[in-house]
């Protein structure tokens, strides 16, 4: 995939870039039959290539030659080799995926493993895009991604967005992408991460493996339903983010952020902050009563607090609380909503915030069970994400500590 060029130089179109490369720009090659078939596969082989191949083979066994392949990895593996292994199996399928904090299965989370989900149907129309330089020019990357995806000619569908979770200003990326593509598309995704080392993470399409990149896939031709929710509730009075810059909040209610935060609880020692932060994120309501959650990460020496995602200045919010039970219930509800949106869901993707996994610990299995219970026999696969991209009301926004469920249905179904 071409690098992100300097803004002053006009970038060649996607078509120009892929001329002669043997790709069918309009749509991928014809798959057997119109009815969608899905497949999922896992591997925990320690050989990256073999793990990829194994997981892919398992998935393809069910789906047949896929049109689109989702690939979730963990940071244990050599991402390129994994991709290579997967590609060997799925061949010309579009591939979209990222490195995560863990692979979600029906039974639990694989902290080391490969997860592959494949979709196969003649009606599937898929386009992928991998754009570098996300951290430097998130808005432009989003815009370029939109241009690339639209160049496929697919004019409706769902955009799967997997940005590098360590890159800043992902909201700008969403802005650029959304402006380019417009509200006629649905958007769902999650930010890539690692095993909480916050070192490096990866994004990939069939083209390549990158970091500090945005991997997207536009999937059209199949019905998709999404559901997003978290279960957090406001714990007390409103607070005002009086000063914030990107992911760092300096002041709350005119006071140093940490002070204002801890005043809510009475005085808490700084070393205890991560524990509190995990349990008591900030939530910012929308008009419809939905709260966007922002996950506090760490306290800085100047009393400011770093968050996982950008916190808007002058935002009115609350300290949120939530019992595990409530969180789990919500996850189940969300899954139910997602699958309920389409007539015959065939596959469920679960993009769940790693912070919920860390909070719940062993209880996280219960969340997965709740989701499973809600979706029934539909195969599910997913990954732990470092932020989720989804819509309460069809408008893609960036979330923390949230569960995103994507149900992909059979195109023969109607709703």
């Amino acid at each position, binding site marked *: 995939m071409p690098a992100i060029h300097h803004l002053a130089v006009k970038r060649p179109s996607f078509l120009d870039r892929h001329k002669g490369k043997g790709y069918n720009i309009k749509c991928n090659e014809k798959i057997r039959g119109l009815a969608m078939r899905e497949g999922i596969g896992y591997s925990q082989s320690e050989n990256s290539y073999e793990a990829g191949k194994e997981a892919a083979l398992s998935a393809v066994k069910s789906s047949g030659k896929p049109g689109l392949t989702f690939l979730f990895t963990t940071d244990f593996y050599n991402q390129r080799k994994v991709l290579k292994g997967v590609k060997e199996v799925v061949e010309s399928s579009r591939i979209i995926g990222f490195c995560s904090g863990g692979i979600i299965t029906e039974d639990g989370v694989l902290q080391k493993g490969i997860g592959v989900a494949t979709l196969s149907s003649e009606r599937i129309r898929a386009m992928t895009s991998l754009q570098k330089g996300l951290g430097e020019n998130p808005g432009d990357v989003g815009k370029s991604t939109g241009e690339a995806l639209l160049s496929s000619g697919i004019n409706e569908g769902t955009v799967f967005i997997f940005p590098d979770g360590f890159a800043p200003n992902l*909201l700008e990326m969403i*802005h650029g992408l*959304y*402006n*380019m593509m*417009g*509200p006629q598309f649905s958007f769902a995704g999650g930010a890539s991460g690692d095993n909480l080392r916050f070192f490096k993470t990866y994004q990939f399409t069939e083209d390549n493996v990158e970091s500090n990149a945005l991997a997207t896939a536009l999937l059209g031709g199949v019905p998709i339903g999404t559901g997003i929710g978290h279960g957090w*509730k*406001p714990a007390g009075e*409103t607070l*005002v983010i009086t000063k914030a810059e990107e992911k760092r909040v300096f002041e709350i209610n005119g006071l140093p952020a940490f002070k204002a935060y801890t005043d809510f609880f009475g005085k808490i020692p700084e070393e205890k902050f991560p524990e509190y932060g995990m349990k008591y994120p900030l939530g*910012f*309501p*929308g*008009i*419809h*009563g*939905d*709260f*966007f959650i922002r996950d506090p990460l760490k306290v800085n020496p100047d009393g400011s607090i770093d968050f996982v995602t950008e916190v*808007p*200045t*002058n*935002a*009115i*919010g*609350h300290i949120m609380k939530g019992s595990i039970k409530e969180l789990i219930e919500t996850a189940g509800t969300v899954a139910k909503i997602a699958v309920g949106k389409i007539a015959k869901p065939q596959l469920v993707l679960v993009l769940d915030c790693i912070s919920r996994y860390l909070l719940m610990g062993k209880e996280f299995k219960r969340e997965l069970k709740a989701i499973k219970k809600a979706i029934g026999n539909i195969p599910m696969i997913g990954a732990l994400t470092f932020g989720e991209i989804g*819509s*309460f*009301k*069809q*408008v893609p*926004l960036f979330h923390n500590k949230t569960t995103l469920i994507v149900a992909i249905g059979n195109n023969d179904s109607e709703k």
Partner: protein
Amino acid sequence: MIPKNNEEISLYKRIIAELSVTTELATLSFSDSLKSLAEEVSEKAVRLFNLRSFAFLSKEKGELREVSLWGFKNVKDVLRKAKENKSNQIKFHLGKQGKLGLLFMEQVSPVTVKERKLYLLLARKVEDALMHMKITQERKSAEKELRVLYKTATILNSGLELDQTLEKIVDAINEVIGFHNCSLHLLDKERNVLVLKIIRGAGSDYWKLRKIVPIGKYEYNICGLAALDGEPHYVRDLMELDFPEEVKKNVIEKYNLRSYLCIPIKFKEEVLGVISIMSQEYRKFSENERGLLSTFADQAGQAIARTRILDSLRDSEEKYRTMVESANDLIWILDRKGNFIYSNKRAEEVSGYKFKDWEGKSFAPLIVPEDLPDIQRVFKKTLAGKPQSYRVRVYKKDGGIFILSVNTAPIFEKGKAVGTISFGRDITERVEMERKISAIYELNQKMALSLDMDEITTAALDTIENILNFTSSSLLLIDEEKNELYIKGKRGFEIDIRLPLNGGKGVTVWVARTGKPIIIPDTRKEPRYVKGKRMMLSEMAVPLVVKGKVLGVLNVENERLNAFGEEDLKLLQTLASGIATAIENIRLLENLRESEKLYKSLFELNENILENSPIGIIKLDNELKISYENPEMKIIIGVHPGKESKAMEMDIRKIPSVKKAGISSLFNKLLKGEKISKETFFESIYGKRTYISLRGAPIFEGKKFKGAIITVEDITEKRRTEEELKKSLAKLRKSLIDTADALSAAVESRDPYTAGHQRRVTQLACAIAREMGLPEEQIEGLKIAGLLHDIGKISIPSEILSKPAKLNEIEFELMKSHPSVGYEILKKIDFPWPVAEIVLQHHERLNGSGYPQGLKGDDILLEARILGVADVVEAMSSHRPYRPALGIDKALEEISKNKGILYDPQVVEACLKLFSEKKFKFADKGLNI
């Protein structure tokens, strides 16, 4: 409230949410930056309302521009969507009539009332924020302008040279407005070109080689246009102008220059130059930018004007400094305390002091003490605001004194006199001259009053001593009898000599002989000089001259060389003139006295002659009273010669017989110095009338009327004789005319056609002569001539005279001889008039075409010219043997036509007037002349 179920939980959540949203909207920050505002508004709108699409557009110069978009690619998409007006959409025009911009929001579900209110709150907050931003921007813009003005003022006041100032201005333009190319041209009015002064940015190297821009020559010359009409000019795209290819290639295309703005540099409406800026993008240059650029241009204009004024001032200052320094007058300036602040070179030269000797010190010690109180008073008055003029004596450095004539005036600063400026002229020499002239004047006064030669001589020598520096002086006079110069008065030596004027040596002799003054700077080199006992090395002598006659010499000598100059000579000459006049006056007086004596004796001698004179003589005194009557006069009066008449000692004007004769006022003329003469009747005391001839002459002594001598002659007999003579003359004349008439008739009897012709001609001629105002005496002569003008025809055969046809050549020649024949006959008679000549010339014509002599113009006697016109008129209006009468009109037409050519114009005019106005008619019988 603790929610009990999910529904309540949801409600609770919604309430909290609404509250939070409302609060958050209310706290929308008033950002200075549109970008920050856009980010915040967009983020909140999308997050709080879950908007599907959102657009925040601002309005600039009537156009909507993207500020922030969500779900749109561009403004066009927004505007298209905004027109849909769907229930899930809402839009707000921000500001009055949308002047600030537009907010557009689209959500998933239809907009509820509550949501609408919240959107409205958002829109109002955005509006407020935009207004705040606008005000802040305007304030910043104003501050920027102020900074610009301050900056440029600082530049202007920094005292930099013009070039540096202009450079700074261009720098400031770049800082504030920015450009890719900026040039500053100054206007050269004489050559009608713009000259490049400063160039910056793209294309500089090219333009630096092409510094001269002619004005009004090329249409693409926008810069020149701005200079020409004094208005800013803008071009959006330079490529649209018809630049030469070279310019397009080497500048415009090469540097990708697009928009171009030219602002004239003006000062008080006069264009001094142009500032031009070019941009590499299409740039409109906002009103604000144009205004700022104009401000810079104004500042540049002020700088240029100031430089010119300063240069001019410097030139003036230099000029005035030079004038002051090189002035012939002394110029100095004092402060309020009377201390010297400045003095010019002339002051130094005259006083001998340097300015630094007196700088900061008072003028008082320089003034002669006697003059100081007055000068101090003058100084005070000057400081009070009144210019003064005065004279003052001032000490020189060497102790000498010089005299100044001074004009002084106050120097004002902010309405208060801070000192004085004075202009002084050294009049020391003039004053000295005045003193000398005064001395001469005094001498003249003395000499006018004195008639004593010795007195005058002494006074003259005293004055010379007063006005000249000499060792010896002398006044010499000419003794005419002996033809010698003798010393009348002397100073400084004792010798008394007489110098012969003929061939004699001596400078004074030369002066007396030539009447010319002389200065001898070194007597040793002068051959004419005669040495005396004492050695005098220089001499000066002037003649005493009156009416061209040398009376004497004034002489001065000095032991020093070159002791006398031209000024001294002029003084001595002035003196000499007065002395000479005085001497002459004395001599004249003496002569007068002598002549008075002579006159007196002559007068006494005359009295004897008077007694025996056959003519009456009266002496009148200065009051016109009779002081003497001789015996003859007494007889005329009617008094016995031995007795005294009663008229003695009477005012002659009042004597009754004089009054009766009507000649009283005649004697007044004597008082005016006029002679009188009159012939008149005089009645004696006995009533005897005599005809007298009276003559009188006044006697004056100088201007004073002393009296008169009157002579009276009895010319009664003489008059009688004259009367008789006149009578006999008249008789004689009558008989003459009768004789002429008879002769005339005799001539005419031979030619019956011309009978009466001469008479009629004579009638007309005399009438013309009278019309012309000729005297009767002359007309008498004309009359005789007229009657006899054709007497010569007596020699022409009568057959020819009365030939009914045209005469042949011989006959005509014969006829033409009659004036000559007439002349021959009449010349023998001694008429008292030129009758023969008149007859001879009566056929002459003005242009010489007449006969017999072919005389012209004034060579023809006037009487002949009159006779000629009368002859023609009578002839043409009468029958002739060879033709019928042509009529008087034809005759008058003939003379009128040839007036000034053949016939005397005055004569013709008189003749025409006789017929037209005076209705002249020929009389058939009698002369009637």
